[in-house]
């Protein structure tokens, strides 16, 4: 029978779970050992922040928190590959990307601590805030990419989405419009195996999540999301294509959610300890550390020193967060519209009066 079209999804990995290179053609950036060390240090910092945030929640000093344990390589690759004037549209646990883009830990804590000011962060002013409604951020990335294209700015919009989120209508709509309009957009599907309690295979009959891009005519690739080198290489490639007007791309980063979904979740209800133990064998930091040490670029002493340093830094941020007073009640009103309509002025006064009374 005549063939109308054929497609191929490649799988990219440089550094395997044991920290050994599995291919020769190392990309240029990966030959810069100091860069690799720096990225590794950032991954470690993210992991330390994550642990402290969970501890804060457990002691009642933070609201529900979504950890990123196991996603560090994927996030660092995204963050380090992007330019500052590129636009990032996250979901809700991409701390590694945000730290690299200048968001302060205290700001992330403020958001999870129930304070909107955390979204008015030190990162790029054009970046989007956390996006709780799954998948909707992908269309913000597409719209941003369209703005860049209209204004002929060499900028790329990057969105991240989960394996569960790859089922959400908005995600597929975003890929489709990116393909239809040839937008400078990169969508990274962070496939960590689970959407709360729903396993990846219950989300779709597709063999890979990367192939969702085929429906939109986008280039797609599946990458070992625990391999910092492979993820960074894929991001560099995708960003370059997009920046030069060659269109959007879908990257499936295969990783694993080593933590509960959030601090409100108990993953033991729905997945086996074995699965998690097995996943720890493939986690991203250990393999990078092994690799760097094999290059004599990293030592246990440096590791210990760095952990201490990160710990101090995060503690400082935590204190800054804890010392932040709640917003005054007016804050509830003052960002609803650019200018407060008469109705709201009245309600605002009403609320202020109650504040005084109590």
């Amino acid at each position, binding site marked *: 029978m005549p063939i109308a079209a054929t497609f191929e999804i490649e799988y990219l990995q440089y550094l395997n779970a044991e920290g050994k290179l599995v291919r020769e053609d190392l990309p240029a950036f990966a030959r810069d050992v100091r860069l690799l060390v720096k990225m590794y240090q950032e991954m470690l910092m993210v992991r330390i922040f994550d642990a402290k945030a969970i501890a804060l929640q457990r002691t009642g000093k933070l*609201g529900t928190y979504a950890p990123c344990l196991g996603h560090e390589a994927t996030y660092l690759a995204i963050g380090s590959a992007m330019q500052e004037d590129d636009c990032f549209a996250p979901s809700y646990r991409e701390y590694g990307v945000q730290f690299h883009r200048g968001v302060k830990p205290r700001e992330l804590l403020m*958001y999870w601590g129930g304070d909107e000011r955390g979204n008015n962060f030190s990162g790029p002013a054009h970046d989007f805030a956390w996006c709780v*409604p799954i998948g909707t951020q992908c269309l913000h990335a597409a719209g941003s990419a369209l703005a860049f294209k209209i204004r002929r700015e060499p900028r790329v919009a990057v969105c991240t989405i989960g394996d*569960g989120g790859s089922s959400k209508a908005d995600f597929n709509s975003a890929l489709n419009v990116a393909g239809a309009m040839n937008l400078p957009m990169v969508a990274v599907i962070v496939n960590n195996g689970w959407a709360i*309690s729903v396993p990846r295979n219950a989300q779709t009959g597709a063999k890979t999540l990367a192939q969702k891009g085929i429906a939109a005519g986008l280039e797609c690739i599946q990458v070992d999301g625990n391999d910092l080198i492979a993820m960074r290489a894929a991001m560099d490639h995708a960003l370059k294509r997009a920046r030069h007007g060659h269109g959007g791309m879908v990257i499936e980063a295969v990783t694993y959610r080593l933590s509960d979904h959030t601090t409100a979740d108990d993953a033991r209800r729905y997945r086996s300890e074995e699965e998690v133990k097995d996943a720890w064998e493939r986690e991203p930091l250990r393999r990078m550390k092994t690799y760097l040490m094999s290059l004599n670029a990293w030592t246990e002493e440096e590791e210990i020193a760095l952990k201490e340093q990160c710990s101090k830094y995060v503690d400082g941020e935590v204190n800054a967060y804890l010392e932040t007073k709640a917003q005054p009640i007016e804050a509830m009103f003052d960002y609803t519209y650019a200018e407060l309509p008469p109705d709201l002025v009245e309600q605002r006064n009403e609320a202020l009066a109650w504040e005084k009374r109590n």
Partner: protein
Amino acid sequence: MAQITLIEAVTQALAWEMKHDPSVVVLGEDVGVNGGVFRATQGLLDTFGAERVIDTPLDETTIAGITVGLAAQGMKPVAEAQFEGFIYGMLEQIICHAARMRNRTRGRLTIPAVWRAPWGGGIRAPEHHSEANEALFTNVPGLRVVLPSSPGRAYGLLLAAIRDPDPVIFFEPKRIYRQYKEEVPDDGEALPLDVCFVLRDGSDVTLVTWGAQVKETLEAADALAEEGISAEVIDVATLKPLDFDTIHESVRKTGRCVIVHEAPRTAGFGAEISARLAEHALYDLVAPVERVTGYDTHIPLFRLEMKYLPSVDRIIAAAHRTMEVS
């Protein structure tokens, strides 16, 4: 007989109806093994199996659309939106199809489906987990909108909602999911939809509310009683279709009405009640109707949310304002 919470009453109602009606299926995100993020579907998978307790892909459009399809083909689906703040992706299917199918086909195809969702603020949850968006549904013909406020009413009204031959939006006030327990016989007895429940008789002022706010309203009634002000408390329970007669009857008696709800005030459902009073009870009203509601802003993240939600004090103050007139 066991004492159960509101969330346990929801589970009990689902289990009863699934046991007695094989066409009832439950679907949503994490409703299976996990039993729902609030455990509303806890244990149902073990009892009824994966064909009737269905974990769907993560897409509200999908959940709403296949619910319409299931119902049109004779099933009785009970779909869950994990939170009321994620129900928006379901609106096209609910408004264009669930609410219209009977009318569109002159009764040939009907949608006996229920959309459940945890609803409202006050649990220190993240963004989009604290909304009171019932007003999205109350202007849509063909829908019923139900909001229980106690374990007993949650059980009886959910049974009624599932058995109702038309689509029902069933919002569960998550703030009081586990607030207290009461005896709820698991006897399959449904409560009537389309009636308001008078929770407390009173003669001076009528306090009308629904959902979690029933708690604050009853507390306000207690405080007022201590001052010698007799407040009648009405739980609307079924917002649409509205049983205005019960409210009207009460206001005929008291001449005063305070409406309490979490949602933003402007064009919230309280407006409809206040409007009907202006139209049908004008001469019964001794004092202007009062609305104690959320402000016309987004409910803030949790550090400020309790300042947004109507408080006992605000309800009492509104009642006092109505009493100033005689």
